[in-house]
């Protein structure tokens, strides 16, 4: 017997910060007028594999990194699978990607810095402009900064290190903790999952490796920042997060790229494993420039009593295809996927979430908010599967789309498959426009049309924004205001 539940009645996942409102107000004072991250550095990388990909290049990457044989083997097998695997027949149009015209590996510097002073000046300036060192000083427990294919800066607070928390780049993780990496690498997302997961497994470089020991709570977030700089660059970071029993970690990633007329490709693989009663929150505020194909596979496993939350904000990029997923493998495990997408002219945001209920008393919520403008396209794909025997499971899916212009497109493809009777399900979808009466009401109080629309749009995605730490909510509101101003073309 399926009953309806209201997703809005579920308690919020984070408490509200008292400074939040003040910060949001501050942000309104300095709204950006253009894509602020669109510059590029004239930096000559110390090594690249050149354009295109073959078996030699895959082996060269592995060799340069001094990897163990098992990893080289996985890379080569994944490469072979990549060659024979077709692109997905559904979703966004990927036919224009020229896989021969991409640099698969670009090494920007010789060594990774442990302090910003050790990072080459030009790269450091770039991250300064992006506000990373400042954010690190203010509110982060650790920072990883990836530039092209390599992590160029890495830090973690000493107290966390003392508690046994590992936060490092994936290459170092593999070198320093091969036994853990070997145990979990590719177990949540095998390379045969899809063509781009195969590509990532073949050429991966950088990304984060996070290990949180039993019972350790990392109270303030860890952040990784991914920056593409070169033309035709490919970025293929690989992230693995393992939260041991009863632990807690919040990982945040941000990303930007210069504006190039040539396309870039970002194709990450992210695997999360939340052991019994552990919690992993994974927050993304993506702000790629409009020439980036962003094709990412993100998946998590949640064991008994564990919670995994994907908080996924997709702005920018030319095409994004991303459906963060969660396997609920243990009794009482919880999944939360909250996403927001903004598709402006020329952009496609094909996003959503998937949850597999494989144990009783499991809970999942998928909430999606999409805004489309100009000729932008947004597609929501939600997928929930509840297997037989997963009694007393609860699932709610909700997707809301807002269309700002006549030519934009928004579609929804929700799928709910339930083999168990004793569950509670909810599903709701809405499509709206900026209503004339809402606009008139706000304007009748003195707000300009632009201010009024921005308020309505910010209000619309507020269920997403409130999930973000304050600083990122501020950033997101700025990015949305920027999207509102962006010329249609």
């Amino acid at each position, binding site marked *: 017997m399926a009953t309806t539940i209201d997703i809005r009645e579920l308690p919020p996942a984070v408490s509200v910060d008292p400074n939040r409102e003040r910060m949001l107000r501050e942000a309104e004072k300095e709204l950006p007028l253009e894509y602020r991250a669109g510059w590029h550095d004239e930096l000559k990388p110390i090594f690249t594999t050149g354009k295109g990909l073959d078996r030699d290049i895959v082996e060269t990457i592995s060799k340069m990194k001094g990897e163990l044989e098992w990893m080289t083997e996985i890379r080569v097998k994944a490469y072979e699978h990549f060659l024979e695997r077709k692109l997905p027949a559904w979703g966004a149009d990927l036919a224009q990607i020229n896989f021969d015209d991409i640099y698969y590996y670009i090494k920007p510097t010789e060594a990774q810095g442990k302090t910003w002073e050790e990072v080459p000046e030009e790269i450091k300036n770039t991250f300064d402009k992006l506000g990373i060192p400042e954010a690190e000083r203010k509110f982060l427990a650790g920072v990883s900064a990836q530039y092209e294919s390599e992590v160029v800066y890495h830090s973690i607070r000493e107290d966390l290190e003392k508690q046994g928390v590992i936060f490092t780049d994936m290459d170092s993780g593999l070198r320093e903790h091969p036994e853990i990496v070997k145990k979990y690498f590719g177990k949540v997302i095998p390379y045969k999952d899809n063509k781009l997961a195969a590509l990532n497994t073949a050429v991966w470089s950088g990304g984060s490796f996070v290990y949180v020991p039993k019972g350790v709570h990392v109270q303030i977030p860890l952040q990784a920042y991914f920056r593409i700089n070169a033309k035709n660059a490919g970025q293929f970071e690989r992230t693995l997060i393992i939260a041991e029993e009863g632990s807690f970690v919040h990982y945040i990633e941000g990303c930007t790229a210069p504006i190039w007329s040539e396309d870039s490709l970002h194709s990450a693989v992210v695997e999360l494993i939340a052991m019994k009663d552990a919690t992993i929150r994974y927050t993304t505020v993506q702000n790629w420039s409009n020439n980036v194909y962003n094709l990412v596979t993100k998946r998590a496993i949640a064991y008994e009593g564990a919670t995994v939350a994907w908080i996924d904000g997709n702005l920018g990029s030319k095409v994004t295809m991303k459906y963060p997923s969660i396997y609920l493998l243990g009794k009482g495990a919880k999944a939360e996927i909250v996403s927001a997408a903004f598709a402006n002219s020329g952009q496609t945001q094909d996003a959503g979430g998937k949850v597999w209920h494989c144990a009783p008393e499991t809970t999942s919520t998928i909430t999606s908010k999409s805004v489309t403008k100009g000729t932008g396209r947004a597609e929501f794909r939600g997928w929930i599967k509840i297997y037989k025997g997963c009694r007393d499971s609860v699932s709610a899916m909700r997707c809301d789309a807002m269309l700002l212009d006549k030519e934009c497109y928004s579609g929804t493809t929700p799928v709910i498959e339930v083999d168990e009777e004793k569950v509670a399900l909810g599903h709701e979808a*809405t499509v709206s426009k900026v*209503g004339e009466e809402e606009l008139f009401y706000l304007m009748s109080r003195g707000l300009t049309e632009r201010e009024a629309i921005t308020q309505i749009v910010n*209000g619309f995605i507020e269920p997403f924004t409130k999930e973000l730490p304050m600083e990122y909510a501020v950033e997101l509101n700025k990015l949305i205001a920027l999207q509102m101003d962006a010329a249609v073309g």
Partner: protein
Amino acid sequence: MAAAETLERPVGTDGRVPTLQIEGLHVAIDGHEIIHGIDLAVNKGEVHAILGPNGSGKSTLAYALMGNPRYEITEGTVTFNGEDVLEMEPDERARAGLFLCFQYPTSIPGVQMGNFLRLAVKARFGDKAVKTFRRELQEKLRLLKMDQSYMQRYLNEGFSGGEKKKAEILQMAMLKPEIAIMDETDSGLDVDAFKVVADGVNAMRGADRGFVVITHYNRMLEYIKPDFVHVLIGGKIVKEDGPELAVQVDQHGYGPIIEEVRARGEEVELPEEGGATYAREEPAARHHDPFRSHGRTAI
């Protein structure tokens, strides 16, 4: 308009151009004319009541003055402090000091009342007003017996009838308009809320502010004493006088006024609902009411 000339019209007290001056105003919605020529002059310091049965064009007048794009001005002029209001967007009118207290305030999900108020105050008075915002807000909240928690709530969302009207008065109090148009502010209020709202309005009365109080219900005018009363029927102002006119309407209804107009040889276009219907509080959307829920469609 021959008829209007025979009526004794209230004019600016000292012969200056009135703050809000409406002349020969005709308003249509979807090509259907609702208001057939209205003249009205409102000065700061004055309270004008516009009385009329349902469907006589009262709300149409209010929305048209505020610049709702659905309302087409087919004829006539409106000036505010001598400036052509009809050339102004709704936000420009608001910043100039015109305010509309909505009969059915629109809810805006996700937009917190407090943040919105701050933006509105900033739009009207500029950055410097933000400094005194908090203190002033506290003061007005106390005046209107509103809880601080209002500020975290989403604009009008899930508000009761009374809460919505109080929120409107709060906005008015913060934006300090020169002319405030109050569209059926008494509808949907219980006695307590009514009292609070009326007190709020009275506290704002003064030499620097004029009011246009639209109502079909005399109760409002017992609390908010008008200086002038205009009776609007069938899209025309058919009778104007001092406060005693409201009492007269309250006692005898619109019947005698309609007869009077007919005796003058004029036609009166009676609304579909017939005469005054005092009991209807939150009427179902009328045929010309654009404020129906057409924003969101569930699929």
